[in-house]
């Protein structure tokens, strides 16, 4: 099984680390992974995106034009990449930031209100983990438990007090999708 996922959004939304965490979780589960950022002009701000491939076998090209899933964290990203999702693929988007939803009818679409959920957890920094949790509940690329382990690797020591809240965020993300499962299916 090979999963080819695109994470996209504003710089500063934690796009790259979302992908990195997922990739690390893949490694922990003994899979092959690549994480490929699109590094933009040498300036702060702007948009950021990364491709993550998690696979059971050796990964040939880390560069792909079509994706199994798109995680879009802002409007421009959704607009730009909606058409790059394979038929029967998945589009997850941050409904707090995205006003015009996707229009494709041949893919699974999930609107995730990460802001609202993050506020519930009293921590806006975990928005991206809520999204990851939500995504994994739809597409089990790796175990959420592994993601927590991966976070312990990805986060520098000084942030390890944040592990717990991130774990909660992941679970929160999983849960809301399950709650909303029927309308999404």
């Amino acid at each position, binding site marked *: 099984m090979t999963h080819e996922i695109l994470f996209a959004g504003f710089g500063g939304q934690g796009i790259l680390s979302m992908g990195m965490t997922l990739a690390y979780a893949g490694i922990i589960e003994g899979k092959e992974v690549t994480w490929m950022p699109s590094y933009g*002009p*040498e*300036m*702060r*701000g*702007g948009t950021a995106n990364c491709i993550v491939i998690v696979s059971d076998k050796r990964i040939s090209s880390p560069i792909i034009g079509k994706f199994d899933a798109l995680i879009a964290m802002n409007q421009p990203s959704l607009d730009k990449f909606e058409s790059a999702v394979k038929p029967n693929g998945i589009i997850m988007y941050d409904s707090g930031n995205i006003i015009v939803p996707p229009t494709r009818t041949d893919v699974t679409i999930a609107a995730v209100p990460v802001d609202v959920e993050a506020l519930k957890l009293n921590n806006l920094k975990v928005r991206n983990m809520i999204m990851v949790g939500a995504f994994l509940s739809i597409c089990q690329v790796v175990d959420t438990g592994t993601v927590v382990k991966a976070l312990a690797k990805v986060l520098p020591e000084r942030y390890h007090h944040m592990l717990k809240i991130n774990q909660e965020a992941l679970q929160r993300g999983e849960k809301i999708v399950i709650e909303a499962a029927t309308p999404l299916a």
Partner: protein
Amino acid sequence: MADAQVLTNGMETVWEKPRTLSETRMHYCPGCGHGVVHKVLMEVINDMGLQDKTIGVAPVGCSVIAYNYMNIDMQEAAHGRATAVATGVKRVLPDKLVFTYQGDGDLAAIGTAETIHACNRGENFLIIFINNAIYGMTGGQMAPTSLLGMVTSTTPEGRQIETQGHPIKITEMVATLPGTYYITRQSIHTPTTVRHFKKAVEKAFKHQMEKKGTCLIEVVSNCPSGWKMTPLEANKWLDQNMFPIFPPGDIKVDGKLVEKKQVISQKKEIK
């Protein structure tokens, strides 16, 4: 525009964006000094009617696409070579006005030789030197002007003398060269300093018209992103940490070194 309802009947416009500054939204980070400098420079060119006479040279650095913002003829130079490129331009167009717009990495590291020799030849152009003590564009590495102990991505433990030497005061160095005519260190982090800076730019262009030799204006500036601060914090940090090492004031006026460092005048002043 949301402000359209503000009534301005019977009012005169006392400040508006100069038409020499293009409509293109600048890519600089919020609060970055580059924008302020661009704006003042273009104001002066506008006020003095120099748009058709001025050629700017901006090398690699955050301001590499200054040509997108400055509504004048411009050349983009290789990293460190702005003064060489400007020499080429000015020598063949001696009656035009030429300025370079360079960062500290550009002017004081890779471009050291070009900087010093342009000043030594007394190339008759203006060097605008943005000293933000960091390599902004490439993501916050140490610059030759980074302060001792300053944390950057290549000095995670702070800049150490042993391996990285001292912050270099190249402005003071070039002031000792007979080819330079007007050398000053300014900043643009408060309204008053912006006014002073504008005066300095005007002065430098006048000197250039009179073929007096090289003028250099160092702008002690900020890099909120590289310094990992908010713009307000950055400007405060600049005031407290940069100024002791890079004190503002004129260093050379009318071809003569200023004996005591002159502090920017405290008296009230308006445009």
